[in-house]
């Protein structure tokens, strides 16, 4: 905390690529409903963006959609 003024935010090389491998292909199918999601393999998708917030929001949309396949309440 004493050094907070000198601490820097995290940084990433852009564009950032998030690759998600699911347990089953159905989840990857569903993830591709989200704009800007690319299918890489049977169970794997990728989201790429220069804008980190847009990237995270797309990832959250994928998470919430695929939860619908497994959550019971």
């Amino acid at each position, binding site marked *: 905390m004493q050094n907070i003024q000198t*601490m820097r935010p*995290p940084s990433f090389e852009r564009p950032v690529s998030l690759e998600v491998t699911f*347990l089953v292909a159905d989840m990857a199918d569903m993830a591709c409903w989200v704009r800007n999601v690319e299918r890489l393999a049977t169970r794997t998708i990728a989201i790429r963006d220069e804008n980190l917030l847009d990237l*995270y*929001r797309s990832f959250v949309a994928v998470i919430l959609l*695929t939860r619908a396949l497994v959550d019971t309440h």
Partner: protein
Amino acid sequence: MKLFLSTDFEGTSGIVAWEQIIEGQAEYAQGRVLLTNEVNAVIAGAQEAGADEFVVNDAHSFMRNLHPQDLLGNATLISGRHKPLYMMEGLDSSFDGALFVSYHGSIGAERAILSHTYNPRAIWEVRLNGEIVGESGINALVAAHYGVPIILVSGDEVTARELASQCRLQASARGSQPRCAEYSDHAPALL
């Protein structure tokens, strides 16, 4: 000084089993006590260092594990799961620092506590720019967007190591090794 806390559950000191962190399970009430105490320990420590405004985003499971009346620091609590920025809801550029409290290592990470990445029933693996990443690394994207430094990570040692490796943080990780494998108690790792 205004601070944002994203609070998970698995990385809380004293948590060793899923029954302690899932609603309706036998040990959930006890787990809640441990989590609340851990969050308040972070707030109290930050207050001693001069922080005076806190926003706590409950970021675990259904995201209603914390009770607002139990939090120190007159903290604002963000509860509930349906949030556009999910585990990072509430963060913006007005904050001086972000804190990841009670976090855990990525699914499959060696010696991580109750390891998973976002949804253990759906996600097998997540890679960020080609490297395996956990929730801490994914959530750091939001901190990076808003230009907010991550000033503390508490949880298992894997969490701190993964985050530092993933997004070029300037501090170094400190922590203790767990005594056993992933289902043992552990000491928090601080970044």
